[in-house]
């Protein structure tokens, strides 16, 4: 396959970026999207150019590092991560626009790499349980209803890739925060801090430059893990409950 790529190039955060056109030839349909970018970078290095910076790590679809806006779709035309997107999803001669996630909460570092530390700060504000460490407790000691464990697991599959923010017309991080709030909120271990957790995590999300949720649903539609809109409803339910109970976040 021969492809024309238009890639966002921006040498550093304050520089003015622009779309630059590159040709790549002999792309195998079996390559992943990232391998295709590796081929492009080899070309660029051989010709003495600066290779395109992009985030990647596991290349197995579980780390959440790789996130690109491909032809206007977060992670490209398939509902998966960029590393699990294969070139067979494209046709010979295609023109492909590649851009970084665009969000006030994700400042750009270079080219296609953005700083997603805002997500870490949201997690750090309450996405944990305080439990004494030691050997793992007997699993049967804390029964969890099947329905709850399934729902908690669905939410816990969030890999924090940021596609929800990137795709949201409002630039909201609601689906991410909701997934992190509700996977703990559904389990017995998460109960003691449930009210404080939702208040603190939502407050941290609002402190970052993310937008507000208007329930459009783009986030869930592009989520590589298919996290559903019900998690947002669950977050709102918890938040209203916590506010009604006058929960004060413990320090």
């Amino acid at each position: 396959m021969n492809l024309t790529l238009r890639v966002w190039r921006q040498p550093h955060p304050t520089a003015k970026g622009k779309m630059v056109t590159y040709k790549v030839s002999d792309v195998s349909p079996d390559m992943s999207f990232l391998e295709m970018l590796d081929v492009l970078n080899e070309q660029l290095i051989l010709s003495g150019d600066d290779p395109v910076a992009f985030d990647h790590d596991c290349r197995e679809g579980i780390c959440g590092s790789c996130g690109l806006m491909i032809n206007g779709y977060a992670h490209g035309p398939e509902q998966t991560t960029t590393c699990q997107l294969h070139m067979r999803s494209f046709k010979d001669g295609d023109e492909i626009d590649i851009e970084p996630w665009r969000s006030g909460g994700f400042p750009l570092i270079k080219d296609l790499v953005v700083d997603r530390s805002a997500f870490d700060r949201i997690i750090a504000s309450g996405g944990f349980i305080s439990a004494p460490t030691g050997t793992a407790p007997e699993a049967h000691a804390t029964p969890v209803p099947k329905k709850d464990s399934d729902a908690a697991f669905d939410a816990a599959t969030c890999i924090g890739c940021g596609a929800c923010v990137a795709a949201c017309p409002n630039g909201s991080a609601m689906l991410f925060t909701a997934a992190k709030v509700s996977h703990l909120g559904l389990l017995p271990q998460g109960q003691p801090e449930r009210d404080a957790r939702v208040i603190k995590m939502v407050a941290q999300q609002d402190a970052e430059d993310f937008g507000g949720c208007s329930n459009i649903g783009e986030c869930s539609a592009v989520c590589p893990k298919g996290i559903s809109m019900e998690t947002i409803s669950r977050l709102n339910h918890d938040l209203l409950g916590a506010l009604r109970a006058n929960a004060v976040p413990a320090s």
Partner: protein
Amino acid sequence: MAISGILMVLFLVAHAIGNLHVFQGAESFNEYSEWLREFGEPALPHRTLLTLIEIGLLVSVVAHMWSAFSLWRQAKRARPVAYVTKKRVQQSYASRTLRWGGVIILLFIIWHLLDMTFGAVNPDGTDSTPYDRLVASFENPFITAFYVLALVLLGMHLRHGIFSAAQTLGQTNKRRERLLNITATTFATGLIALYLVTPVAVALDFVN
């Protein structure tokens, strides 16, 4: 957003039902209008009920607009650099047009008040009965077309608004989502149909 929206939807339902008095003739319609003003007299002062409704609506409208404005401002800050290419995956026309649709609906409400309540822009002028104003307006095809357009927009606003309100109040889940979507569509379509029968009846000369 959700609470003020729900209050306004409740008003819309009452308003739609009230409008149906038009099919009982001019006298009944005008009497209904009088009744709204005289409700509770002499125990309550003139226009008590109507004033209370007006205050409630005004507060709701302002709260709704303020929430919408802050969401819009937040959204602008949240995406300082726009995408060169961005495609839609899931969003409906209704959810996409919510913000501007809201602005158009606000302009419509202002027109509607000037037309039907104050008579300032009504073909029959200010010195007329509510029934006369209604018939006079809807006998003009341009005004009727404007009403129909605004009501269809309102229907779409409600379609997404009802789903969104349920989400905001934390009342949805995967199982309810389908039912909720069907309910929102049915309710919005039904309510708008109820509103549209009046201009259609005037246009077809059932009401004159």
